[in-house]
């Protein structure tokens, strides 16, 4: 691959239902996900062998996140002050366009041509690779999984394991085709190929872009966790480091990261700690021999302040991006990450994406759940995901003239017909006279009920009223007893 290669990602086609349907029919994809999710669930369970500790730690994690959010504006200002004092430049962006503009202006100020990126979901929100590619700047992913999906013009299918939808054979073919290396399914060799290519890129890059796991207000520290060392490379080798993160990632005190870090790595990968915990508090100081000359932090809103405005939906922002909810989700495991068509898949994606892109763009997200509750049960910061899904379902059918504006795109599934039917149904079930009348006709006219009732009859037999109602039979039963 030449140094000027620009890798765009392909746009996601079709709607959610079609993508989900196609994914369900893809045996290879389903096998890859089933295997990976089973393994991740087992590892997490082993890492939290003491249920007592786990539950107390989750409660503490929840309290720390809730405390940070309850002081969020003050903590953001404190973070900015401390980072600025440490020599880090802080930028604020309300939209992804603004954030991309900031990143571009920093790159242009340094006449940068090559960007190397550590793993960052916020940069995925920004579609930074695409944005920069359009402007003649190469933006290469350096996390092995992210590199693989970028090479195949795809997007991550999991927030922690971006290439989990692929098996070694698929990666082998990809490397053979795109990098011209000999075909090998040996994972060690594949990783060494990636290492070789990317080392050169780290060496050449003008700019390093990373995400942030926790931003500590108290000390002005950006904390990043990773196993590969690409995060350290990205934030240390190039002369300029730009970190991008959501405004919710701030925590109050340094000690707060102790339990959060433990919850994050154990929930995500079932390990006590990642290989590297990188705490960055500033650029290279005078007389230091390495490290970036400049460090920038871009704080992105992108719909987070909308979720923040409602005290129930605010809990969405507790998220520490561990991915445990998707690992345990029966829907995600069956359809994979790409079917969701957005940056964040799985349960967390279903509750955060509507704030970022508007509910109207992802109308099926809140209902693509069996509400089994597994996501809420494993969430390390106790986000009540099932309750939030139900809440979003309500927002999604709100009448357009509702005075209560909670979120962009609300009421996208509102239908006058459906509302009328539900109102009629409610009336029917709350009026004894109407209910008896309905029962009388439903049992006698049962032959006339339709055999095809929309999506229901795709997978189920059509409902048919019984010849006699339960009321009727109970009445008769009681009458007989009275005779004895």
């Amino acid at each position, binding site marked *: 691959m030449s140094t000027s290669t620009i890798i765009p990602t392909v746009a996601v086609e079709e709607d959610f239902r079609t993508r989900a349907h196609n994914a369900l029919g893809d045996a290879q994809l389903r096998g890859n996900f089933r295997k990976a999710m089973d393994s991740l669930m087992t590892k997490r369970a082993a890492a939290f062998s*003491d249920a007592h500790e786990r539950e107390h730690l989750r409660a503490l994690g929840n309290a720390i996140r809730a405390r940070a959010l309850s002081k969020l504006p003050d903590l953001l200002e404190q973070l900015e002050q401390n980072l600025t004092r440490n020599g880090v430049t802080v930028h604020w962006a309300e939209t992804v366009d603004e954030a991309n503009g900031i990143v571009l202006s920093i790159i242009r100020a340094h006449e940068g041509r090559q960007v190397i990126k550590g793993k960052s979901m916020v940069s995925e929100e920004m579609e930074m690779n695409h944005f920069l590619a359009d402007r003649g700047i190469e933006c290469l992913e350096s996390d092995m999984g992210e590199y693989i999906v970028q090479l195949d013009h795809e997007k991550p299918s999991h927030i922690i394991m971006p290439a989990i939808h692929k098996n070694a054979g698929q990666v082998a073919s990809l490397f053979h085709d795109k990098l011209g290396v000999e075909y090998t399914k040996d994972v060690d060799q594949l990783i060494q190929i990636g290492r070789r290519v990317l080392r050169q890129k780290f060496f050449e890059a003008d700019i390093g872009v990373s995400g942030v796991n926790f931003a500590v207000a108290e000390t002005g520290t950006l904390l990043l966790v990773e196993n590969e060392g690409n995060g350290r490379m990205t934030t240390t080798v190039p002369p300029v480091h730009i970190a991008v993160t959501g405004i919710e990632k701030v925590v109050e005190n340094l000690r707060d990261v102790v339990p959060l870090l433990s919850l994050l790595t154990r929930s995500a990968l079932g390990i006590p700690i990642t290989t590297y*915990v990188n705490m960055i508090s500033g650029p290279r100081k005078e007389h230091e021999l390495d490290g970036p000359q400049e460090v920038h932090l871009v704080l992105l809103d992108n719909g987070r302040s909308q979720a923040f405005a409602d005290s129930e939906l605010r809990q969405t922002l507790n998220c520490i991006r561990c991915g445990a909810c998707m690992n345990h989700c029966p829907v995600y495991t069956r359809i994979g990450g790409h079917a969701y068509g957005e940056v964040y898949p799985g349960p967390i994606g279903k509750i955060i994406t509507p704030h970022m892109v508007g509910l109207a763009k992802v109308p099926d997200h809140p209902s693509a759940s069996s509400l089994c509750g597994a996501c809420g049960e494993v969430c390390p910061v106790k986000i009540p995901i099932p309750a939030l899904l139900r809440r979003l379902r309500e927002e999604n059918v709100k009448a357009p003239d509702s005075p209560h504006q909670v979120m962009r795109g609300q009421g996208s599934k509102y239908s006058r017909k459906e509302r009328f039917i539900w109102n009629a149904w409610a009336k029917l079930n709350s009026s004894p006279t109407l209910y008896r009348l309905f029962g009388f006709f439903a049992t006698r006219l049962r032959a006339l009920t339709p055999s095809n009732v929309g999506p229901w009859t795709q997978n189920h037999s059509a409902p048919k009223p019984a010849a006699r109602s339960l009321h009727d039979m109970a009445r008769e039963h009681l009458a007989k007893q009275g005779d004895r």
Partner: protein
Amino acid sequence: MSAKQNILAKLRKSLTGTTPVADNFDVDLVTQPYTYAPEQRIAQLRKLMEAVHTETHLTSGQEWPTLLAQLLQDRQLPSLLIAPTTPHGQRITQHWANNPGLPMLKAYDRPVEEWKAELFNDTPASITGTLGAIAATGSLILWPTREEPRLMSLVPPVHFALLKASEIRDNFYQVQQEFEWAQGMPTNALLVSGPSKTADIEQVLAYGAHGPKDLVVLILEDQ
């Protein structure tokens, strides 16, 4: 209004009439299960570090340069990057002077820009000190300085680390408290818990992703 003002104004409006959640940080929860008797600490650290392919050796303040030279020769490493002005860097220089024929020493004594290609392409191993370690998670604490810069522990494929046994702490919370990190953090502080690794392909664990392929810890038992 700027983006900053808009964001802060929205957040403040949403918090109108609310009170901040109280700080009920439970110190016991993150310390009690992770407290060890002094004689357990080395074993606990080695268990966790070796589980992720770290090589550990018990040695002494007197013996470690000899062991280091031996390990370099066993691995047929042609050179070693050192931080020449640190006490351990000086010990190595001294030991090497007394023992001719050992692998070449390289000093990280100038800005990376002046020798970046050599660092990336021709520096097979390095040795750094540590600020201590954490038994609970099997982590080394690195606090790179001007004398011992950040890339020393990252770019060379083999990283040797010196650890004084007395500086092994129980848990991360204790480390933050004892070193008073909240009062001031260095430019870059690191926890390193093994050689670089990835499981991004089919969850198969592979070592040597982007950082060192080998991490070798020399534990000085008598220090």
